């Protein structure tokens, strides 16, 4: 599997680097990836379905315990097969859909990179590689939604999708880290086998990430916007595969999550039901065929999320079957809409007319796939939904009733979709061009597959069962063409009948949705909330920048000083408890300290530059005295020498400057900052002096000074022998400074003289 994933990466890079001359061959090259995936799946399927997962392991950084761990069990194999089959279909379709152009290879490369990343998500056993592949799909989704980069709408939709799923991904990463920490393993298989206790926050964060990726309410707003992507991308990413990543993940983790938390199932149930109803309801209001499908996808994702996230074997079985069914019929419908769009130039149900007469095969495709979506008997959609209903019946009537209500909405928007696409136009109708080739036959094939599986579900039964066993340990369901007279059949046929009766009265439905919309549209929309959040974020960043980026040096320095004090105080104050105040030193220190303090305070008050120089000298000489009084004769000597030199330098420079300082106003902020710094230094000193944990390395220097370096003055020996390279660096600094001074001043002085 690893080689297949790498193959996708190589194909993407190859197409990118050959984009100037690959022309119309971009998609034929790209399709190698999905075809290889299908080949691999067929090759490995017998062993995996028999219950032997395929494990691949590649050491990456053994020292850090980082490795690529792939584990393909039945559950992963189902998604691998879906990515391969739908991916191959869509690449063939794309080859016909796009007119060759300079940007088409970029699209093909992004799509094939996405397919590889998606395979990575479903086959990785290591949480970190799941995250990396997860974010790769976010990035490729961003590129694909924003493919039409001259459209502001497409760019903003791409940003919306990337921000929501990216933020969700970060939350998920946090959850992964907590989970791995609690369970002491990065491997999903370990964590599912031995679920860590007490990791409630981790589960919540992972759930947020999964919900954002699978467009669950209230984070679903990005998915309809993502329809700005070219139709093949929408069919692949935003219905068949990427949005199922969240479903995939909750399906994997829900048995462990429900075992360790008592809130997981109620929360997943609430999210799923809300998403189902919101998506179905919104789909009933759309006039754009693609948006209608997008909201339909939101609704279906809610259903899948609920089933997969339940951790209940019977529901997991239904989830697995529905993932397959939904992938087939929804991608067929999207591609059919793309075909209709390219034949008529519109997707507006008010303007489409006569499409069925002119394009009979597209009509047949759409009706077949739509029948699967509405779960009409003899389609795979029906078989899968029947399996799901069968499981739901065991979980209580209330739950089935809610799902049946969502199913009614599904049937109703399916009817709206078909009537809109093929029924009479209410607005000025468009003409229909003839189209043919892949654009017609690829969706036909996908829809046909749904029909064949609906009649012979046994073809995928081993796959579905091994997938269900892989996550829930049990194949607690059945795939049958006709379930017999069971309660589940009643629910599913009942919702079909009610839905069809709604289809029969489209005007009444429109009136009701419009009436409700006048109320609901007054509330905040998800798109509006996202915009407001984004504007708030950018505005906040602007205000923050304007506050700190004032251009004033004193403000910058004060900010730095206060930040240091604030950050440093937190650990320091904790240490202050056991600190004792040191004693007063030798008596000679008192007059010296007085000299230093009086000179320093004088520096603050004086307005004469020369007085300042003298006072600075006072500070320096006073400190030299303090060094001398505390066993530092070398320090004292150096201080005196340097101070003298500095005074001379100051005098030379200030000779050229006015004699007085400008009057500077005292400011409260400045005083407070200074007091804070002074206090910080005092506390730091008190704590530091008490914090020695090891003897000073100086003991070694003192011992070795005479024998090794033949010097009695240990400070000098350290500087010129033990640490001579440091001193070389110091001298270099001096030399550079000298050069700098010369370069800065000499030309000016020369000009002044001449």
């Amino acid at each position, binding site marked *: 599997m690893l080689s297949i994933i790498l193959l996708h990466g190589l194909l993407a890079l190859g197409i990118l680097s050959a984009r100037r001359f690959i022309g119309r061959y971009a998609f034929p090259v790209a399709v190698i990836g999905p075809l290889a995936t299908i080949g691999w799946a067929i090759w490995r399927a017998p062993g995996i379905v028999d219950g032997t997962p395929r494990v691949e392991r590649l050491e990456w950084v053994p020292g850090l315990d980082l490795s690529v761990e792939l584990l393909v069990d039945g559950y992963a194999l189902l998604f691998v097969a879906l990515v391969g089959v739908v991916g191959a279909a869509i690449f063939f379709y794309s080859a016909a859909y796009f007119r060759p152009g300079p940007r088409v290879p970029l699209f093909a490369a992004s799509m094939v990179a996405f397919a590889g990343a998606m395979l990575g998500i479903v086959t990785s056993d290591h949480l970190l590689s799941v995250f990396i592949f997860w974010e790769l799909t976010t990035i490729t989704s961003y590129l694909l939604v924003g493919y039409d980069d001259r459209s502001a709408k497409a760019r903003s939709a791409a940003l919306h999708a990337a921000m929501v799923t990216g933020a969700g991904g970060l939350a998920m990463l946090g959850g992964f880290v907590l989970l791995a920490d609690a369970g002491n393993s990065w491997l999903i298989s370990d964590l599912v086998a031995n679920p860590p206790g007490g990791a409630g926050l981790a589960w919540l964060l992972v759930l947020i990430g999964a919900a954002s990726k699978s467009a669950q309410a209230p984070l679903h707003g990005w998915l309809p916007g993502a329809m700005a992507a070219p139709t093949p991308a929408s069919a692949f990413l935003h219905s068949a595969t990427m949005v199922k990543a969240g479903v995939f993940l909750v399906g994997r983790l829900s048995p462990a999550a429900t075992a360790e938390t008592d809130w997981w199932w109620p929360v997943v149930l609430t999210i799923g039901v809300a998403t189902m109803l919101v998506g179905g309801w919104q789909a009933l209001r759309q006039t754009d065929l693609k948006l209608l499908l997008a909201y339909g996808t939101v609704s279906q994702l809610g259903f899948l999320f609920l089933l997969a996230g339940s951790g209940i074997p019977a529901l997991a079985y239904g989830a697995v079957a529905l993932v397959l069914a939904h992938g087939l019929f929804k991608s067929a419908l999207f591609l059919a809409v793309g075909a209709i769009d390219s034949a008529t130039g519109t997707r507006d149900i008010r303007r489409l007319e006569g499409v069925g007469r002119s394009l009979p095969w597209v009509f047949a495709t759409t009706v077949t796939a739509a029948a699967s979506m509405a779960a009409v008997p003899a389609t795979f959609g029906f078989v899968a939904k029947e399996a799901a209903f069968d499981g739901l019946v065991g979980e209580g009537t209330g739950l089935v009733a809610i799902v049946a209500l969502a199913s009614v909405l599904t049937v109703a928007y399916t009817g709206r979709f078909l009537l809109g696409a093929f029924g009479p136009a209410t607005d000025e109708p468009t003409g229909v061009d003839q189209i043919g080739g892949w654009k017609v036959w690829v969706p036909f094939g996908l829809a046909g597959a749904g029909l064949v599986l609906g009649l012979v579900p046994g073809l995928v039964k081993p796959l579905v069962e091994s997938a269900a066993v892989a996550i829930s340990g049990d194949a607690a369901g059945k795939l049958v063409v006709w379930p017999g007279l069971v309660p589940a059949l009643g629910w599913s046929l009942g919702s079909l009948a009610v839905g069809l009766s709604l289809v029969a009265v489209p005007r009444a439905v429109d009136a009701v949705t419009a009436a409700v919309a006048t109320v609901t549209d007054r509330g905040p929309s998800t798109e509006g909330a996202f915009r407001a959040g984004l504007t708030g974020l950018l505005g906040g960043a602007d205000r923050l920048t304007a506050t700190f980026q004032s251009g004033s040096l004193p403000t910058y320095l004060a900010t730095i000083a206060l930040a240091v004090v604030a950050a440093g105080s937190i650990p320091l104050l904790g240490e202050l408890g056991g600190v004792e105040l040191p004693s007063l030193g030798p008596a000679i220190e008192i007059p010296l300290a007085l000299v230093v303090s009086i000179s320093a305070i004088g520096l603050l008050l004086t307005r004469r530059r020369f007085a300042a120089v003298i006072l600075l000298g006072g500070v320096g000489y006073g400190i030299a005295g303090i060094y001398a009084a505390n066993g530092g004769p070398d320090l004292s000597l150096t201080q005196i020498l340097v101070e003298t030199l500095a005074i001379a330098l100051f005098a030379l420079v200030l000779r050229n400057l006015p004699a007085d300082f400008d009057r500077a106003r005292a400011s409260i902020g400045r005083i407070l900052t200074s007091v804070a710094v002074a206090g910080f230094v005092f506390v730091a000193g008190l704590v530091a002096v008490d914090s020695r944990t090891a003897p*000073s390395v100086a003991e070694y220097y003192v011992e070795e000074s005479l024998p090794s370096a033949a010097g009695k003055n240990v*400070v000098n020996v350290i500087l010129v022998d033990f640490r001579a390279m440091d001193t070389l660096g110091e001298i270099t600094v001096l030399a550079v400074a000298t050069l700098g001074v010369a370069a800065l001043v000499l030309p000016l002085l020369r000009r002044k003289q001449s």
Partner: protein
Amino acid sequence: MSITILALASGLAGLGTYLILQRLLTRIIIGLGLISHGANLLIFYASASTGESPLIGGDDALADPLPQALVLTAIVITFAVTALLLALALRSYLLTGTDAVEDDREDRRIGGAE
């Protein structure tokens, strides 16, 4: 080591901070000098070692020579920095007629104030 030294270190750091938060380069340089003195005293104080000058030969305990070597280096480097800053102040005065640091207009523009 005595509290006098720590008090001096903290006082010099505070006064130096007050000075560098102004606009005249001369004052800023003096402030920087005071902060450096304060930092040197703090290192000296934090060594927490009292004793005779670190010269081999006596019988008494020696003061820790390592902080002294560090401070010695710091004194010299501070001098180099001071010299460079003084040259900047002089250049600024000779070219613009003042040694005050004006607001950075580019920064203000980025911040949106202009």
